[in-house]
C-alpha cells in the first residue's frame, strides 16, 4: 500500500498502472483443471480484454489476479513482486454491483478509505457523473447508476490495476455504450492497468489495446488492437477484428478472410 500516498491533497494525482506478469499459472478445483500453465504479460497502463466461452477460465484468472483465490501452481508478479494474498494494488468491479444497501451512495464509495474519505468520495462520484446522487440510498438508483457507483468505489482509491469482471453484462445496450465510454475516458485520464473479462467481443475490441481469447484454460489468441481511439464500431477494420476473434472462440474455419478481402477496402 505504500505506493499509494494517501496524504496527497489533490485526489486527481495520477498513479501509474501496475505491470503484471503471469508465469506458468495453473488453477484446479478438485480434479478439474481450469487454468493450464498460463503465461501472460500486461504492460503498465495497458488495457487488456479477455474473452472466451463461459467456463473457459477467464473469471478464474481475474480472481487469481485479485488475490481472492490462490493459484495451484505458478506465480503472479505485480511490478516484479510476487503476489501473496490479496492484491493491494487492485480493485475489482463485479457484474452485480455489490453495493451495501444500508449505506448511502457516498458512503458506499468511501468504503475502506482511511483518509480524506468524504473529499475523495465526492471526487470519484464527480468522475462518474453522479455527484448529485451522493446522499441517495442504493435502492433509489437504476441498474446503470449502481454500476457507476461501483466504478466510483473502485476508482476512489486510485488502484494501479482495475479488474473488471463482466461489469456491464447486466446492463441494457444503451447504458452499456455509455459505460464503455466512461470506462475508456477514466482509463485514459488515470492511466491504471485495466483487465476486462467479458463475453462481448465487440466490447473487448472497442476498449482494449489487446484482446486475449482463452479456451480450455489456455490462451488461444493474443491479438493487439491498434485502431485509433475513439473507435468506430462501424468500420470494416473493427468488423474484421471482431470476426477474427469470434471465429477463434467458435472454432470456425477462417473463411472470413476470403469474404473480407473481397471488400474493396481490402483489395490494395
Amino acid at each position, binding site marked *: 500500500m505504500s505506493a499509494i500516498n494517501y496524504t496527497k491533497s489533490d485526489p486527481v494525482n495520477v498513479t501509474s498502472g501496475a505491470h503484471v506478469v503471469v508465469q506458468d499459472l495453473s488453477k484446479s478445483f478438485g480434479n478439474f483443471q481450469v487454468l493450464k500453465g498460463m503465461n501472460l504479460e500486461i504492460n503498465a497502463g495497458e488495457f487488456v480484454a479477455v474473452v472466451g466461452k463461459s467456463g473457459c477460465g477467464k473469471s478464474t484468472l481475474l480472481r487469481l489476479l485479485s488475490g*481472492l483465490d490462490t493459484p495451484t501452481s505458478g506465480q503472479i508478479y505485480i511490478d516484479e513482486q510476487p503476489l501473496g494474498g490479496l492484491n493491494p494494488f487492485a*480493485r475489482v468491479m*463485479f457484474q452485480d454491483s*455489490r453495493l*451495501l*444497501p*444500508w*449505506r448511502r451512495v457516498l458512503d458506499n464509495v468511501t468504503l*475502506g478509505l482511511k483518509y480524506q474519505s468524504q473529499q475523495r468520495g465526492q471526487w470519484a462520484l464527480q468522475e462518474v457523473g453522479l455527484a448529485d446522487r451522493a446522499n441517495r440510498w442504493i435502492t433509489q438508483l437504476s441498474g446503470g447508476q449502481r454500476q457507476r457507483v461501483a466504478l466510483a468505489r473502485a476508482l476512489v482509491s486510485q488502484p494501479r490495476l482495475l479488474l473488471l469482471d463482466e461489469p456491464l453484462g447486466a446492463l441494457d445496450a444503451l447504458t452499456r455504450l455509455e459505460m464503455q465510454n466512461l470506462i475508456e475516458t477514466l482509463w485514459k485520464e488515470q492511466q491504471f492497468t485495466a483487465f476486462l473479462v467479458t463475453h462481448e467481443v465487440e466490447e473487448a475490441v472497442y476498449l482494449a489495446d489487446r484482446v486475449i481469447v482463452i479456451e480450455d484454460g489456455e490462451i488461444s489468441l493474443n491479438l493487439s488492437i491498434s485502431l485509433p481511439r475513439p473507435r468506430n464500431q462501424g468500420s470494416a477494420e473493427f468488423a474484421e477484428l471482431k470476426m477474427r476473434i469470434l471465429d477463434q472462440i467458435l472454432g470456425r474455419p477462417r473463411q472470413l478472410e476470403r469474404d473480407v478481402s473481397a471488400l474493396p477496402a481490402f483489395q490494395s
Partner: protein
Amino acid sequence: MQLVQSHSSKFSWQTLPWQQFAPWLIPAALIVLWQILAQIGIISTRILPAPTQIVEAAIRLALSGELVRNVVVSLYRALAGFLIGGSIGLSLGVLNGLARRAELLLDSSIQMIRNIPHLALIPLVILWFGIGDSARIFLVSLGVFFPIYINTFAGIRSIDPNLLEMGRVYGLSRKQLFSQIVLPGALPNMLVGLRYALGLMWLTLIVAETIAANSGIGYMAMNAREFMQTDVVVMSILLYALLGKLADSIVRTLERWWLPWHPSQQG
C-alpha cells in the same frame, strides 16, 4: 418541479389525519358499541362491565397506589427477563452465525430445548426457584431467548457472501467486515426477532404471574377474580394490551432509526 412539489405537499396534508386516525377507528367504534350495550343492559356488568366502569376501577386503583406498584413490578420482571434472555440469545446467535464450529457444537442442543414449550416447565421452575421473582424472570428469559437467537443466527447466515468477498477486496479488516457488512445486514432479521421476543415476554409474564405470584398485573387480575371484580380483571387485560402495543411501537421506532435504507421503510 415547483408545481409538483406544492401539489404533493397539499396531498400529504390532506391524507395525514386519515393515516393517523384510521388505525383507531375500529377500536373506538367497538368501545362505543360496548358502552351502549352495557348501559341498556344487553351485556351484564358481571360478565363485562362498561368501559366507564373500567376507567373508574383504574382511577380507584391508581389513587390507592396499587396500580402503579403492580405495573412497576411487572415491568421490572419483564425487563430483567428480557435483558438476560435477550443478551444470551444475541451472543449465541452472533457466535453460531459467525463460527461453523460453534454452530455444530451448540445449535442442535438449542433446537432440542426450543421444542419444549417453555410454559410446560412452570412446575419444574417452581420446584427449582420457588414462587419468587427469579422463577418468573427465568421463564421470561427462556421465552425471549429463542426468537432473538434464531433470528440473529438466520440474519447473519443470510448475508450475501458476495458482499463479504467485495469487502475483502476493498481492504476491510475482519472487524470492519463485521461492523460494516455483517451487523447492518443482519439487523432487519434481528429486529424481527426483537418484535417476537417482546410478544413472548408479555405472554410468559402473564401466565407466570397468574399461576403463582403475590404482586404484578397478573396477580392483580387473579386476585380481583376471587372477589368477582370483573372491572379490575378487564382493566388488567387491557393493561397488558397497552403495554404490548407500547413495546411494538418501540420496535417500530427502532426500525425507523436503524433501517432507513430498508424497502419496508420507504414509500
